[in-house]
C-alpha cells in the first residue's frame, strides 16, 4: 500500500514534466548528494524497518501457527478465525493505526501490533491448509506405529506442513514491509519516515529524493527479506518434500 501511495508521486512528477514546468526536478547528482549526506540516517531507518518487520512476523508466526494448530480440527472455530482474519486484512492500515494510536500511543508499540494483526491471516490460513493437507494415510500409519497425538503433530504434521506455512510467513513478511512504511504516520520506526517527509514537503527541493529513497529502500528490503526467507524455507524443509 505504501508502494502504491508513493508510485502515484512519480506520475505526479511526470504530469509536471508534461506541462514543461518542473516544480520538483529530478537531478541524478542531487540524489547522489542526498544519499551521501544521509547515508547513516538511511541505514538506521532501514535497520529499524527490518527489525520491526522481523519482530512482528516472528510474533505473528508464533501466534498464527499456534492458532492454526488449535482450530485445525474444529470446523466452527476454524471458519471463525479464518473469516475474522480475512475481514481484518481489509481494514485500511491507516485506519487501523488511527484506531490503535489513541490507545497504544506512538512509536513501536502500535506499529508492531498493527503489523502482527496483518501478518496473522496468511500465517493462520497457511498453517491450517498445510496441516489439513497431510495425507490421511500418513496419519493412519503414524498412529498404527504407536505415535501419540503430540508426537504426530511435531514429527509428522508440522514438518510436512512446513513448506506451506513458510509460504504464509513469506506473504506476511512482504505485506508487513509495505505496511510498516505507513506506520511512520504514528511515528513508527523505519523508512516510512522518508516517504511521509517527501509527501509533506511536496514542492520542496528534496521531496522527490525523500520519497524515492524511502520507496526504493522499501522495495530492496522486501526483495532481500524474501530471498532470505526462501533460503530459510529451503534449509528447513526436508528434501523429501521438495517437488
Amino acid at each position, binding site marked *: 500500500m505504501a508502494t502504491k501511495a508513493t508510485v502515484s508521486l512519480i506520475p505526479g512528477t511526470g504530469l509536471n514534466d508534461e506541462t514543461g514546468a518542473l516544480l520538483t526536478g529530478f537531478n541524478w547528482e542531487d540524489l547522489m548528494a542526498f544519499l551521501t549526506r544521509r547515508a547513516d540516517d538511511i541505514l538506521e531507518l532501514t535497520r529499524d524497518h527490518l527489525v520491526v518487520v522481523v519482530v512482528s512476523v516472528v510474533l505473528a508466526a508464533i501466534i498464527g501457527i499456534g492458532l492454526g494448530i488449535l482450530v485445525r480440527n474444529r470446523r466452527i472455530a476454524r471458519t471463525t478465525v479464518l473469516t475474522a482474519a480475512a475481514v481484518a486484512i481489509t481494514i485500511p492500515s491507516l485506519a487501523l493505526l488511527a484506531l490503535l494510536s489513541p490507545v497504544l500511543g506512538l512509536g513501536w508499540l502500535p506499529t508492531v501490533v498493527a503489523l502482527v494483526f496483518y501478518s496473522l491471516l496468511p500465517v493462520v490460513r497457511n498453517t491450517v491448509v498445510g496441516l489439513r493437507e497431510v495425507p490421511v494415510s500418513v496419519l493412519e500409519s503414524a498412529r498404527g506405529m*504407536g505415535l501419540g497425538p503430540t508426537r504426530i503433530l511435531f514429527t509428522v504434521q508440522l*514438518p510436512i506442513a512446513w513448506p506451506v506455512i513458510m509460504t504464509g510467513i513469506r506473504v506476511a513478511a512482504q505485506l508487513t514491509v509495505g505496511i510498516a512504511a505507513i506506520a511512520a504516520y504514528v511515528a513508527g520506526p523505519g523508512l516510512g519516515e522518508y516517504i511521509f517527509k517527501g509527501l509533506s514537503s511536496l514542492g520542496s527541493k528534496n521531496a522527490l529524493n525523500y520519497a524515492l529513497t524511502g520507496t526504493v529502500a522499501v522495495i530492496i528490503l522486501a526483495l532481500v527479506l524474501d530471498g532470505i526467507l526462501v533460503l530459510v524455507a529451503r534449509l528447513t524443509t526436508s528434501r523429501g518434500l521438495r517437488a
Partner: protein
Amino acid sequence: MPDITTNTGVLTSLAAQQGGVDIVLDHITKQYPGQQRPAVEDFSMRVEPGELIMFVGPSGCGKTTTMKMINRIIEPTSGSIRINGDDVLSLDGNELRRHIGYVIQQIGLFPHFTIAENIAIVPKLLGWSKARIAERVDELLRTVQLDPGTFAQRYPRQLSGGQQQRVGVARALAADPPVMLMDEPFGATDPITREKLQAEFLRIQADIGKTIIFVTHDFEEAIRMGDRIAVLSDRSQIEQFDTPARILAEPANDYVRSFIGEGAALKRLALIPVTDARIGSADAAAPAVTVDEHSSLREALDTLVLTGAARVNVTRAGAVVGSIDQAAISAALGSEGPARRAEEA
C-alpha cells in the same frame, strides 16, 4: 497408576515373542453411535501362532474394522481381545501398537523421512541404540530385496509404488513384532507387481512365522496367501473359516460359493503339489513334456493341455521320476476333501 508396571511387563513379554503368538477375539462388537446396526457384530475367532489368516469379504463388510480393533486403531464397543493370553484392551494403545506391525494399502510412508528413517520409526520409539537401528534397517532392506546402498538415503517420492510397499512391509517388521496386521497391502499395485510382492512376502513369512491378519477383497489373493481364510459377510459375520483347499472343495453356503466364482476345481489344483497325485511310471513317448515335482497340479494340467500329450513326466532335480495323466490329476482333486477330513478325525 498400578497398571503401568503390569503393562510394561506384558509388553516386554510381547516384545520378546518374535516368532508369532496366538490371538483370541472373543465376542467383539463395534457399534458406532447413531448407526442402527453394528459395523462388527459378535465376532469370535482364534488364530494360532504363526498363522497367516485372510479376511475376505466385500467392501463395507466390516473386515477392516475387525482387523483395526486388534491394534485398537478402532476401540471395540464390547468383547475382549487377547494376544499371547494378555488382554490388549487393558494396555496403553500407543505402547501396544509399537509391538504390532501395521501395513496399509496407501502405505503411508513419511514423505519427509528417508527410507532408512521411515524404517527406524518404531525402533527409535522403543529406544534402540543407533548402531542396532542401523544394522536392523540394513537387514530389513535386504529382506525386502532393496539394496541398502541405493535406497536407504532416498525419499519415498523417489521410489516406485512396489518399492514403496516393500519399504512399508520392512517398516512394519522393524521392531520384529510377533503380530502383523495388513490391510489390502498389495491392492494398489499392478497385477505383475502384486504377484511378485505376494510371493516375496510368503517367502519372508516362511522365515519369520509371524501371526498375521491380512485383509483383502481379492479371493485369489486369499487362496494364494492364506493358511486359513475367513469369508466374511455383512457386519463381519464369519460365513466360513477354513483352509483354502477346504473352502474350495466344500464351500459352506451360496455366499461362499459366489465368492469362489468360476473354476473352483482349477483353483484347487493350484494348491495341490504334483507329488500328491498318484505318479505312474515314466512316459518315454514324450520325454520333453515335464514338470518339476514342486509344481502344482494346475501347472501339470496346463502342460498337458498345452502340449496335447497324454502324460506329463514328473522330474526331481531334473531327473524324471515318473509321470501323471489327467485321470491322476482328477483323482487327486477328488481325494483332497475326504482325505483331509480323515486326517483331522
